[in-house]
């Protein structure tokens, strides 16, 4: 069978990779970063510029199935996860995928991997759409050999484990859109997708906006449901057919498993999202809103994207007031939906919310009831290997970063000491927007955020237009149009080098270069699957 050969092949590749790690060939990519040409035994292409790489070939597809092999009653339930995994032919070296819509409340990913461990399999590749601190026990599974490595965002303890060189394979970090691209293009072939579903029916239709563990959209699991060889739905809220809306369609689903609970509702969505109280962050948020207004972006029918970070939430509050004053209405806002975006929808300040993930209870209620609060997926929003995507239609995006350099390259994955601590999320994909704004403090305690050269390039400077910090607003010199439009503004528009110099003086001079080895532990993929940078092992 194809999938068994594939798993065996991958295993042998991984073993070879471990033996020959020191022989990994490298190349220097278009941004001058040294990147491996092979990752976990699979050849990869170095970054060729934001829009420089043209793919070829046909999309990946799972094997053709027949209804004759599925119950006519539509009832695909099996007693438990072990049975489901067994029926899916779980084997050593398989790729197991999960989604992160249940965020830090998720219990299903760990449940699945631990069950696989008890069934005695080894060397699995865990392919989550993102990992959270609650999944720290996966470190034990890696130590035991159940999980070989993780391809996905590596947060907190998992990132540290990888950074210290403890993971057997190399980490592969992708954006939300890049994950869809990798699955669709067959870069990652998912053997078994395990989809936690807040509501589902016995046929496998599933929805995220209802049920005791409601989380809003299930968009991150959509690619997995379409392209995986086997799909298992795990739910704690089974309803009779039909479960509607059916963001995940049962026609792609092999088995349905009912469990007591898929997650801790308190940690899935926050009861309320709080706006930052930090005066410096509020100042940054205010600058961002004024910039969007004064640059002429805030006009009838415009659109913007806002996350749930402290500054992003606060900027929406400032912008809202400016929109009211000017009598301006947005056509759509993209989120990260929260109470603050829902308020805009209810007040008529926007026609639509296009929702990628839902952060608080008000957001979940709204997506489940308001016809213009629309669940999206990484396919519609972000997939670069499609016939366009929504990200490039957004007029202004406000994003964070751990570092940004004087060439406007941005880093969101590592800290200045080299440790891998965050995932990419939709960050890279959002850079396709009309005006991309990084809203960041100029420094955190004694750690500079605006630097000579970012530790890890996650997004190229050619796509980052504006850096807003508490000490001023730096416009990328490429954006002559923005510089022109803001020429007479009373906003503190300053060259980025000037802000960097000021901060450097304040922090006590040029920082030392952190000790980082030349052993690669992870790669950062660009939205087109090319390798934009490498994460290197950091000695203890």
């Amino acid at each position: 069978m194809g999938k068994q050969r594939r798993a065996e092949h991958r295993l042998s590749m991984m073993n070879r990779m471990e033996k020959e790690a020191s022989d990994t060939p490298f190349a220097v990519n278009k941004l001058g970063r040294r990147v491996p040409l092979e990752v976990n035994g699979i050849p990869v292409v170095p970054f060729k510029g934001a829009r420089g790489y043209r793919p070829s070939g046909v999309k990946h597809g799972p094997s053709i199935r027949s209804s004759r092999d599925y119950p006519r009653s539509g009832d695909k339930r099996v007693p438990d996860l072990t049975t489901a995994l067994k029926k899916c032919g779980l084997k050593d070296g398989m790729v197991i995928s999960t989604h992160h819509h249940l965020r830090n409340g998720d219990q299903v990913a760990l449940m699945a991997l631990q069950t696989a461990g008890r069934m005695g399999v080894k060397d699995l590749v865990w392919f989550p759409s993102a990992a959270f601190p609650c999944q720290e026990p996966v470190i034990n599974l890696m130590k035991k050999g159940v999980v070989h490595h993780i391809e996905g965002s590596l947060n907190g303890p998992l990132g540290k484990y990888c950074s210290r060189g403890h993971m057997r394979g190399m980490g592969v970090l992708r954006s939300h859109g890049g994950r869809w691209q990798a699955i669709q293009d067959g870069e990652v072939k998912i053997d078994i997708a395990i989809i936690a579903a807040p509501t589902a029916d016995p046929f496998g239709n599933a929805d995220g906006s209802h049920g005791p563990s409601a989380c809003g959209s299930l968009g991150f699991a959509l690619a997995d449901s379409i392209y995986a060889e086997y799909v298992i739905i795990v739910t704690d809220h089974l309803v009779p057919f039909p479960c509607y809306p059916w963001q995940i369609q049962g026609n792609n689903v092999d088995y349905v498993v009912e469990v007591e609970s898929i997650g801790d509702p308190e940690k899935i969505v926050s009861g309320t999202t709080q706006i930052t109280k930090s005066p410096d962050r509020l100042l940054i948020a205010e600058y961002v809103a004024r910039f969007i207004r004064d640059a002429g972006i805030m006009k009838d029918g415009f659109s913007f994207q806002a996350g749930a970070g402290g500054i992003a939430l606060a900027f929406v509050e400032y912008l809202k007031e400016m929109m009211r004053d000017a009598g301006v209405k947005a056509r759509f806002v993209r989120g990260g939906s929260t109470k603050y975006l829902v308020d805009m929808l209810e007040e008529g300040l926007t026609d639509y919310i296009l929702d990628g993930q839902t952060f608080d209870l008000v957001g979940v209620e709204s997506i489940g009831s308001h016809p213009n609060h629309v669940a999206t997926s990484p396919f519609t929003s972000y997939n670069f290997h499609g016939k366009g995507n929504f990200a490039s239609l957004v007029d202004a995006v406000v994003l964070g970063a751990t570092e940004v350099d004087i060439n406007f390259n941005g880093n969101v994955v590592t800290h200045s000491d080299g440790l891998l601590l965050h995932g990419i999320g939709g960050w890279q994909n959002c850079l396709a927007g009309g005006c991309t704004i990084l809203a960041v403090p100029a420094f955190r305690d004694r750690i500079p955020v605006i630097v000579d050269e970012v530790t890890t390039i996650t997004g190229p400077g050619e796509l980052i237009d504006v850096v807003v910090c508490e000490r001023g607003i730096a416009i990328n010199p490429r954006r002559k149009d923005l510089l022109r439009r803001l020429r007479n503004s009373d906003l503190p528009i300053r060259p980025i080098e000037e802000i960097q110099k000021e901060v450097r003086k304040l922090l006590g001079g040029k920082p030392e270069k952190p000790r980082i080895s030349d052993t690669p532990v992870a790669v950062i993929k660009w939205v087109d699957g090319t390798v934009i940078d490498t994460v290197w092992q950091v000695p203890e």
Partner: protein
Amino acid sequence: MGKSILDRSSSARQGSAGRADANTRADLLVSVYGDDSGELIQDIQSKVEALYGHSIRKTVANALAEFNFTSGRVEVNDRGALPFVIRARLETALRRAGFKGDGLVRRIRGKRPSTKRDRLRRSRLYLPGNEPKFMINAGLHRPDAIILDLEDSVHPLEKDAARLVVRNALAEVDFMGAERMVRINQLPLGFEDLDVIVPESPDLILLPKIESASEVKQVHRRIAKIQKAAEQEKTIWLMPILESALGIENAFGIASATETVVALAMGLEDYTADLGVRKTLEGQESLYARMRLVNAARAAGVQANDSVFSDVGDIAGLSASAHRSRGMGFEGMGCIHPRQIEPIHEAFAPTSNEIERARKICDAFEKAESKGLSVVSLGSRMIDPPVVLRARQLVENARKAGLIH
């Protein structure tokens, strides 16, 4: 903080300063244990080891050399403190352990002229003297003044530590054009504050709980003495805070005690406590005190400044309160959060109607003067000299606030 207090009481050769809890930011904990072993052990840990480890070690070594600390143990747990904080904490710990040396301060800002006597003082932002993290970006919020506070926001056992942080901040932090004020402690403790901070040339000293002109004069004399020793000439302004019934009764004498008094400030928390009444939002209970203060200030030719508005979340309430203040004749208020600055500036700014009318009055006066007329009229109304004076003042204030050019 708790740890340093305990350590200090145990032995004269031991001292610690600062703090390093899990959520401490931009600060550090320094502990020194002097002994006669002849061995110097340094345990230095920092959140920013990878970026500034060498620099921190160098700072520590220089401090130990300055204070002749050659034998014993030094522990540093740094949570991303800036250099001026590291030096202040090292010095505090060493002094607490009984070591002597010159102050670890770097005067990098050069000579600073006095601020203008009648500059705008609409907002003055309080910064707790022992919390360096709030000082670093305070100037960004564009208050007319910042106050490095050594009094109520500093624990009684941390006064010495706060003094050195404030001293170093005065010397090294860029407050971006805000007037640099320090609130010292009540006398006689306040004299010790003056000894440490006056050489760093603050622009203005706030004197808490002042009840008589003689207290102001004592402060004035002490400043003169310190400045003479340091060979400094800069005029340092004084702003007495009246916070008691007696202080209010002596308002005029206090306001005219010395040439260097530029403003009186109201302290409502202590004043209402002194009266034994509840402080209300409307402030009826302090109406007399505030009017009396404004009147005394005017009579002495100094500014009148109002108290603080303590509900940081209530911006509408703050705005209303500031408007009432301006209506009573106050020219500014204290701020306890940077977000209060803008609403206060708005409230104390003259409206565009007021500015327009004042300019018309000034124009009419100038015209009348050039024609040699003794009576000024605008339309059908006669304009008295005090009206002209007020109009000129308003136009001047509007210019200072950047409302007209």
